[in-house]
């Protein structure tokens, strides 16, 4: 298990300063979220934790060791679902296991169990273009879970879904996470989604991206989206984002 520490990380692309002194910790087993407007550098933070990008200044570390490269214990689910169009659902889900050289039989059992878990039983042999948007996102969540990662990094996983599917998927994500002991970091620009799902919410402001506030939410689950404490939190976050009237 690992604790992720983003330590005064600054990221520049050429002269463009995207992140400035971003500093936060991800504790083991917690469900955290980053909310912020589009373009504030949320994906960049996630990519650094995944090992796909590196901070220009500061460090991003897992258990005090700087993150140099991707590792299967930290799996990123991309903003766009990114299933391989030439692989069927089961082959997509099995991809990471295949890379690790897991025996076919074991792989098959694991994939079937996961597909059942995310509600895609019976779609094993479908290609991504034959699935709905929600099903694709389910498949890519299943693919990440197949790795049994310690840290799950989700980049606006439900951003492209309709409101109904979105709520269903949020509940399913909670169900998958609860009791799993996995650390989850969810990126979203949907404030309600962050409050509904996460225990720790980091609010980011744009250009350059800084964390303006970290909010710990103690609202008991299942959370009522119209409950008083929920509404209160929403207002608080909106104030930090300069969105309150």
């Amino acid at each position, binding site marked *: 298990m690992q604790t992720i520490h983003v330590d005064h990380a600054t990221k520049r692309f050429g002269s463009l300063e995207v992140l400035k002194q971003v500093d936060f910790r991800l504790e083991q087993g917690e469900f955290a979220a980053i909310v912020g407007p589009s373009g504030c550098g949320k994906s960049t933070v996630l990519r650094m934790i*995944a*090992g*796909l990008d590196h901070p220009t200044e500061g460090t991003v570390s897992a258990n005090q060791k700087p993150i140099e*490269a*991707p*590792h*299967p214990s*930290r*799996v*990123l689910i*991309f903003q*766009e679902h*990114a299933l*391989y*169009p*030439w*692989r*069927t659902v089961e082959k997509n889900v099995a*991809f*990471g296991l*295949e*890379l*690790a050289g897991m025996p076919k039989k074991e792989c098959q059992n694991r994939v079937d169990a996961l597909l059942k878990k995310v509600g895609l039983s019976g*779609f*094993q*042999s*479908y*290609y991504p*273009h*034959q699935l709905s948007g929600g099903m694709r996102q389910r498949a890519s969540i299943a*693919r990440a879970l197949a*790795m049994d990662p310690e840290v799950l990094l989700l980049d606006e996983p439900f951003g492209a879904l309709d409101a109904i599917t979105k709520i269903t998927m949020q509940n399913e994500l909670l169900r998958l996470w609860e009791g799993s002991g996995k650390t989850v970091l969810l990126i979203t620009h949907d404030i309600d989604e962050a409050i509904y799902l996460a225990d720790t919410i980091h609010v980011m402001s744009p250009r350059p991206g800084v964390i303006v506030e970290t909010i710990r939410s103690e609202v008991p689950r299942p959370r009522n989206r119209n409950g008083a404490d929920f509404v209160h939190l929403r207002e608080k976050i909106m104030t930090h984002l300069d969105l309150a009237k």
Partner: protein
Amino acid sequence: MSQTSSSSSSSSASSPQVRPKAGSLWQKWLPYLAAVGSLLAIWQIAAFFLPAYLLPDVPDVFVRLFGSMNDAEFTDGIQSSLLRLAWGYPIACLFGAALGLIAGVSQAFAVYLRSLISILQAIPPITWVPFFVILLGFGNATIITVIVIASFFPMALSVLNATEGVNRTHLELARVLGANKLQLLTKVFAPESLPAFVTGAQVAFGNAWRSLIAAEMVGGAAIGLGYYSRWRGEVADMEGVLMSILVIGTIAAVLDLVLLEWLKRRLLRYRYVKTGGAE
């Protein structure tokens, strides 16, 4: 030879994945038949006005063609041309695809490959014939080498372009899931370049066939379709020349339509499944 082509066409028509409706089949073939028909019609009309030794009638040439199926000199020629194609073309495809893939992961090699291709592209393939005749002698080795030179680069170029344009997220995803360099190559770059591979294979096939016939004609071999047609030309046997042209065109068209189409549907199967997943 007519046997091989007809058997390959019937086997692909009876394979379960490629079974278009009768209407669409007709729609697909009608323009093709029209094209062939109009060419033959132009020929026949011209033949009405010209003496037979300059331009023989269409039926006469077909009669001669069927007669020549017993002529060993002609059928051996077809056989050796096809044999050379069967060696040269796949070698060129594999070689070209491998180079293109490697160029996809090595920037320096990509630059090198592009320069190499632009040089080779500037030299007409048959200019290599005298060179290789001296080096390797007349016959198969020379012709096959020329085929490979002529047809590896469309494939290399096509695959190279595809690997350079490979979806970045697809690559990063594989890295996140633990892929090493070799796995990136085989599990992302290669399948992602398959459509380009198919396009490359189609262009390469045209190059291979044309350079094969040309190389045989300019004297790379003393047997083969190209050689036969030149020889018939030298003795002013117009029927023989036209018959060779017919066969050369037909073989290329049949291989292109049947074999390459089959290859495409087989390699890009995921694009053609419409309902209910793969079988």
